[in-house]
């Protein structure tokens, strides 16, 4: 039997009826059409599905939608400010931190949480923070450089 839940996604409140077993990832992608968050493995091994749940970087593939009832969720679609790339997104573009782009939304959300907590992370802190987000294209180097540059620019 479906349950009524309320999710505030990127500042917009949605009332939804969901089957208890639906994950937050499925609801975001299929019910809300927010396909920016990706499914790389479905079991919490790759980080492609990372969203911010109450500001905390979380696997949306291992979170039941019901567990997010009443919570605020941020996805990659909510990062741009007034249609313009935010600082972190711009640094990803500038530094070549994007190749196939499939890990990118998850990386951005994890990096967003990091930069809120730690305005100027060093390389070691960045690598540790993104160690749960797998990337097969970049070797992580340019991603680390982009996040570091985004941190430095904060005044």
């Amino acid at each position, binding site marked *: 039997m479906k349950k009524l839940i309320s999710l505030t996604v990127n500042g917009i409140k949605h009332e939804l009826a969901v089957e208890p077993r639906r994950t937050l990832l499925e609801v975001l*992608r299929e019910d809300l059409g*927010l*396909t*920016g*968050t*990706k*499914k*790389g*493995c*479905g*079991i919490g*091994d*790759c980080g*492609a599905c990372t969203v911010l749940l109450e500001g905390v970087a979380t696997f949306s593939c291992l979170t039941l939608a019901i567990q997010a009832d009443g919570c605020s969720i941020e*996805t*990659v*679609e909510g*990062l*741009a400010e007034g249609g313009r*790339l935010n600082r972190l*997104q711009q640094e*990803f*573009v*500038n*530094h*070549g931190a*994007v*190749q*196939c*782009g*499939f*890990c*990118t*939304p998850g990386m*951005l959300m994890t990096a967003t949480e990091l930069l809120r907590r730690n305005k100027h992370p060093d*390389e070691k802190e*960045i*690598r*540790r923070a*993104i*160690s*749960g*987000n*797998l*990337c*097969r*294209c*970049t*070797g*992580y*180097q*340019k*991603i*680390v450089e982009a996040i570091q540059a985004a941190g430095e620019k904060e005044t």
Partner: protein
Amino acid sequence: MKKHRILNTRAPRIDAADKVTGKAVYTDDLRRPCMLHAAILHSPLAHARILNIDTSRARSLPGVIDVVTSQEAGIRPYGVSPARHDETIFCHDKVRYVGDEIAAVAAVDLDTALEAVSLIKVDFEELPIILDGLTAMNDGQPQLHEIYKNNICAEVHWQFGDVEKGRRESSIIRTDRMISKMQDAAFMEPQSVLAETDARGHLTMWSSTQAPHYVQRTLAMALDLPLHKVRVIKPAVGGGFGPKASCSTAELVTCLLALRTGQPVKLTFDREQVFLHSRARHQFFHTMTTGVRNDGTLAFLEHNCILDGGAYASFGIATVYYSGSLLGGPYRLKNMNYDGYRVVTNKPACGAQRGHGAVIARALFEVQLDRLAEELGMDPIELRLKNVMEAGETTCNELYVSSFGMREALEAVRDSAAWKKKRARDGQIRRDGKGIGAACGFFVSGAGYPIYRSRTYHCTVVTKLDEVGGGVTVSSGAADIGQGSDTVLAMITAEELGLNLEDVRVQSGDSSLSVDLGAYSSRTTLMTGHACREAAQDVKQQILEAISGCLGVPPETLDLKDNRLISLAGEIDFSALREEYLKEHKGFASLPETAHLTFAEAGRIAFLERGTIVGTGKYKPPPLGGSFKGATVGTSPAYGCSAQIAEVSVDLQTGEITVQNITGAHDCGYAINVTQVEGQMQGSMMMGMGEALMEQIIYDSEGRIVNANLAEYKIPTALDMPHLRTIIVESNEPAGPYGAKEVGEGAIMPVIPALMNAIYDATGVRIEELPLTPERLVAALKAGRHQKSSI
């Protein structure tokens, strides 16, 4: 002074903004009205005869629209190579690996489809299974295919030069071995397919593929459809690395169900299915005997290799050739024998993966060079420098290197990594847990011949000028799978037409746009780059001719630069053209007021003069290579080459290995996009490092994959990867557009051996089996200086 305005810069990727905002569309992001979901029934047994398939309970489940087996799909054989059509859409007589596809269901939602799959009953007669590639060829073994006697799917026997003469000239001869494991490409986006037909029998399939063209052909052949009614479109793709370069059962099944139901059908692989499908790195058993003369020059190589490629041929017939042919360089080697056997076993089929067949061969050869250097008392880099080929030379197996920055790359890493200082110990290895190692490699820049026998162009490009003026659209079948080929095409077009990058649109990866063999064998920059340049030049020529007609000046006196039309021979009076343009655009803001004619105006006037302006370009390599059997594999219009130095620190008691840094230099001819070249080098380093230290597919005794997930199939995380230093070498390849050639696969070649050589320096032990895990290292350390592998 810079040669080019846009080329050779760090221009941001044209699709990066879409990817960082979540706007880029991958296949699973697509939805169609009335879309059905498909699920596949995979075999739980590694080798069994199918006695009976009962789909009745599946068919009667509410929500199930169609159930298909080989009855409905037919059993027309297909495969990657025309010489090895050994697959059918579904198994009909036998299953040959755990994961082999038996049936599929289309239903209103995924849950119902999976439910229905679980209701399909299959009766099997179990057959003995063969999992060991080394013994698969022995007489008396279970046979997987009627057509592969002794389970040999392909074999190669080459003799170049005179190996016996080389043997006599050698002062030191070594025989060494290396075993690797089957590995996975582990791209982040699992395969996904969406197929749709229309009322006139046209089939469109979106798929996470590297090769729309080859997939289109296989779909048409296996499903018996007219080629022109099959369209394959590649949306954004989350990595390929090889396994996505051929048509998969998922693609065939989805199309079949779409054709039968008349509704759009989607199928997206679970991560486990990615592993079951594989078509990734073969398992290799290499034995090499190499001799050097006492001056350090290579005298001969005798190479034997068994490739375990799982249950079907896939790319394997090419793989077994590449394993041998790509040892003809990058060193001068006159005498080389190769015997290669590609066998089938009851495991998921292996195909082409980054470096295609040559990666483990290169690893062993580079490790062997180090061992020869040690015996000779020579520095390993000095030994290599003594032997490297130069541009203009040809290998013993007739591969011609038109440009070759191997020496430059090797010297660059040697100096950048402070090799001499770090190795200054009279040639002694350290054995204290810290080590440094070096290696080289090279790879084709596009396969010299298409996979099917044809004189087709390898690619064509169609570039259309906007009728309104201002921009162009480049249409190409080329597949950007993350390596950035769309950006390369945009940059080339912008450069030729004097445009800003943002005024060039690229639509690509669609088989209806043009012919392009796809993203494999590192061909796109060189081949599609050529065609793209030609198309842009064609557009430019037409624009200049149109304007020259209006102005009454010869077209050779005009040019397009910096978004404008300029005169090379004094001032021109274009006021009439300006006036016409302004009159046409009355009421518009931002009208041109410049002292020169803008590109927008020139383009618009050119349309008014001539109608729609379209430029085309095309490319195919000249005939290449020798005339011996298999000579085509390894041929290429050009070769990229790579040198790397790795530094490691090892805990000598736990065996834990930390890679401290990797320095790489890659000769890409000319870097069209500097950032993207670096990105490919860094990605290659990561994949090679994973394959060296942690990646392996593990099977149990029933042929089931034990670690079909990204937790237990280990690829390096950001904490595992060290700092990567990249150096670009530009040898200016004559066969490449602007001198450019590949980087996508050549840069993976030196990684594994550089690490293995560094670990030897750090520990004093050599290991012949990959991956080099901490346990393997500890076992070797305890056993003494050298651990033999189990062969």
